[in-house]
């Protein structure tokens, strides 16, 4: 007699949703913070220059929308993972396709809506909510469906994503009245029935593609694209592998670099490719000006990018997204300082390369703009529309070095500090810091807006001294704790002191040149400049806490 098997569809769906949420909620939180952080910093810095003109506001909105999509979409894709882990479950292909598509789409739409809602409330930027949220959901579905359709081959996936990216970029431009990404003609305020139908149709197609691809994978068939030879197989001679490392430090650097080294430069490469293609294809109204403008924007944006990158790179086992110090690394016969040092060295090299590329891009786009339009627009952009003109006037050519140096320091510091935080391997601590960071950031932004509007009067000197002294105390505490536990020695402390003094000397010289020598800003600068060296102590402390639990 056959026993009747009843699958409780509701329970299965709830369970799969729960699994998705468990896998991704921390990533969602981080992505949301990153979205809000980047957008808020951009708007908070612009709010002082007065209201934005409509075109600039629209361009900014669309650019930030795509940046936000990269963060939230990445988090959603990571939470979805590969469908193969569900293949043994008694769930239909349609059920799996829905599980692998819709939760991520909802998350992306919700995250955009939260960001837009908060920015509208805080800065009055008037971002449309419903239309872009639905569009981004459909875009994520396309990314997910094309990835599953392309199979596991990286090149095939990349090609599919490029195609999807291009098509959706054109579609979004059409929804914003036509034109190019940086010169859109209208804001997409209302979603018409036709647009809604089109989005629904696209989502339907994505669902069908997903379902067919899952059915194919379940059967064990190879994706069609995988039969195409993407690259000739390199024949390896017997024993053709890595030559011997000079030391354990070199080996550990190689270990970290192979996993994490190229992530930050790759982000710049994607940005650069986008800008170069846009410039070459004449996509910008004022090509050279937009190019330099975007380069400067990227330089400012490197700090939040580095912050998010630090939260990723701090994972001890990045491929498995595991922050716990696993036994493979924990049993290396190397000191904790050496292990964390290899990671910091990797990150510094990564930052240096990215920064070098950025400097080259700045030099190139400045030269192009100067050759095309003379010095006026160049100076306008380099001095942030004249705000930093006093520095340029007294420093001359050294002003470029100040800008470049500031970019280097503001990229390195959040990257290394976020890495140190994740190196603790304590998820609860990470969540607490991220959540409180978000709260503090929002408070600071509100504080800054109120001050700009004259609604709040607090002497600058007070908060500057408080922040500066707090940063200094935290850094010194980290060094004292690390030294007392024998994690770092005098050479590291000496190097950190020398580094801090050098940075203070350079910053002080710049202030001296412009005659700005009030004590409170100096205290703030000195305190904040301790943070770039803080990871020399914080990283080994954090890893020791993770390695010896």
């Amino acid at each position, binding site marked *: 007699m056959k026993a009747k098997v009843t699958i409780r569809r509701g329970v299965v769906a709830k369970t799969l949703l729960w699994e998705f949420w468990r896998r991704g909620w921390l990533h969602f939180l981080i992505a949301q913070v990153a979205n809000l952080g980047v957008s808020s910093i951009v708007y908070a810095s612009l709010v002082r220059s007065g209201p934005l003109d409509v075109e600039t506001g629209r361009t900014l909105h669309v650019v930030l929308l795509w940046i936000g999509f990269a963060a939230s979409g990445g988090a959603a894709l990571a939470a979805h993972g590969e469908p193969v882990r569900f293949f043994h479950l008694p769930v239909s292909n349609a059920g799996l396709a829905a599980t692998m598509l819709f939760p991520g789409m909802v998350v992306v739409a919700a995250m955009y809506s939260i960001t837009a809602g908060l920015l509208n409330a805080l800065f009055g930027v008037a971002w449309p909510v419903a239309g872009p949220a639905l569009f981004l959901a459909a875009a994520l579905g396309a990314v997910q469906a094309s990835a599953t359709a392309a199979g596991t081959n990286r090149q095939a996936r990349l090609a599919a994503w490029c195609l999807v990216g291009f098509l959706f970029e054109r579609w979004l431009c059409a929804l914003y009245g036509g034109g190019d990404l940086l010169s859109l003609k209208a804001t997409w305020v209302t979603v018409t029935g036709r647009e809604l139908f089109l989005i629904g149709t696209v989502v339907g197609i994505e669902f069908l593609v997903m379902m067919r691809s899952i059915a194919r994978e379940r059967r064990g068939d190879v994706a069609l694209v995988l039969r195409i030879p993407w690259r000739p197989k390199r024949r390896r001679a*017997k024993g*053709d*592998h*890595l030559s011997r490392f000079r030391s354990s430090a070199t080996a550990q650097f190689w270990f970290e670099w192979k996993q994490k080294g190229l992530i930050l430069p790759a982000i710049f490469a994607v940005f650069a490719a986008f800008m170069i293609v846009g410039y070459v294809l004449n996509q910008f109204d004022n090509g050279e000006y937009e190019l330099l403008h975007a380069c400067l924007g990227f330089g400012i944006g490197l700090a939040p990018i580095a912050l998010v990158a630090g939260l990723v790179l701090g994972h001890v086992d990045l*491929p498995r997204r595991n922050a716990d110090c696993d*036994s493979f690394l924990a*049993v290396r016969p*190397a000191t904790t300082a050496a292990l964390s040092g290899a990671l910091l060295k990797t990150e510094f090299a990564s930052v240096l390369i990215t920064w070098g590329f950025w400097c080259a891009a700045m030099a190139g786009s400045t030269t192009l703009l100067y050759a095309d339009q003379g010095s006026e627009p160049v100076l306008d952009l380099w001095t942030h529309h004249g705000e930093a003109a006093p520095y340029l006037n007294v420093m001359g050519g050294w002003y470029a070095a100040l800008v470049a140096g500031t970019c280097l320091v503001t990229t390195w510091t959040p990257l290394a500090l976020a890495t140190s935080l994740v190196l603790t391997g304590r998820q609860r601590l990470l969540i607490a810091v991220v959540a409180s960071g978000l709260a503090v950031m929002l408070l600071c932004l509100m504080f800054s807006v109120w001050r700009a509007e004259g609604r709040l009067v607090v002497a600058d000197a007070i908060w500057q001294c408080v922040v500066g002294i707090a940063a200094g105390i935290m850094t010194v505490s980290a060094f004292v704790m690390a030294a007392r536990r024998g994690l770092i020695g005098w050479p590291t402390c000496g190097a950190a002191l020398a580094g801090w003094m050098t940075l203070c000397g350079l910053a002080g010289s710049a202030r001296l040149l412009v005659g700005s020598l009030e004590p409170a800003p100096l205290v703030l600068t000195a305190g904040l400049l301790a943070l770039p060296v803080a990871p020399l102590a914080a990283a080994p402390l954090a890893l020791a806490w993770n*390695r010896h639990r």
Partner: protein
Amino acid sequence: MPDPFPSSAPPIIDIRRVTRKFDNNMALDDVTLSVPRGGVFGLIGGNGAGKTTLIKHVLGMLKAQSGTVQVFGLDPVQNPVGTLGRIGYLSEDRDLPNWMRVGELMRYTQAFFPSWDEAYAEELRVAFDLDNNAKVKTLSRGQRARTGLLVALAHRPELLILDEPSSGLDPVVRRDILGAIIRTIAEEGRTVFFSSHLLDEVERVADRVAIIHQGRIMLTASMDELKETHRRVTLRFNQSLDRAPLLVGTLSCAGEGPEWTYVCRGESEQLKRAAEAIGATVVGDASLTLDEIFVSRIQA
């Protein structure tokens, strides 16, 4: 035959009164254990008994909440280089980076161990039939275990720690490779400390064992001593009995009527005298397998 555990030699692993709690779960409860230098030491216990937690303390991956852990006379948390440089470790979950190739993993590991024996590593690679260019993620469970074993062995460690080494190996490989490696290491005067819940394997290779149960060390003894002091004796009484009379050192007892079988702690002669004292005759006396000793000790 020389005593493999000379009492005068300092222990290679010395754990004293170590306690470890994870939230409210007591993982190790006042554990004291000495592993002598040389020989093969088996740590046996059921799933969740605390074997891996104990090994993690030995490797310095967990810090003792109370008590002390010393390996080669050093604290592995304070001195990871001094201790881990002399240890070869194969983890239970074969924790290897998937993105590396076998050859890369060998080169990478070599950089940390000055005593790495290149010829021996190559010999092991060939014996284990591992391809230098194969990525770790493409290896089967058995190959992965062999790769882990290779990098744990190739620097000829003074102390080899294997956490559940058998999982993932098929019976033939398990018997041939593991047995050979453990014996070779032991014969060179090195020490093997390994955990397992597969007791036939422990019985085959270990010279000394410790039984851990619910975070407590229940027993530590040499394998010979363990077998001599745990017996199954069958007693015949003059009359039929409803309940078996108490025999000193009884761990379990079964039977009916005049004949009862006891699993006891104690040597044959002692048990014989004890049986006579309660008016019974020993009609059967046999040693126990490690499996039987373990089960009876845990159930008792």
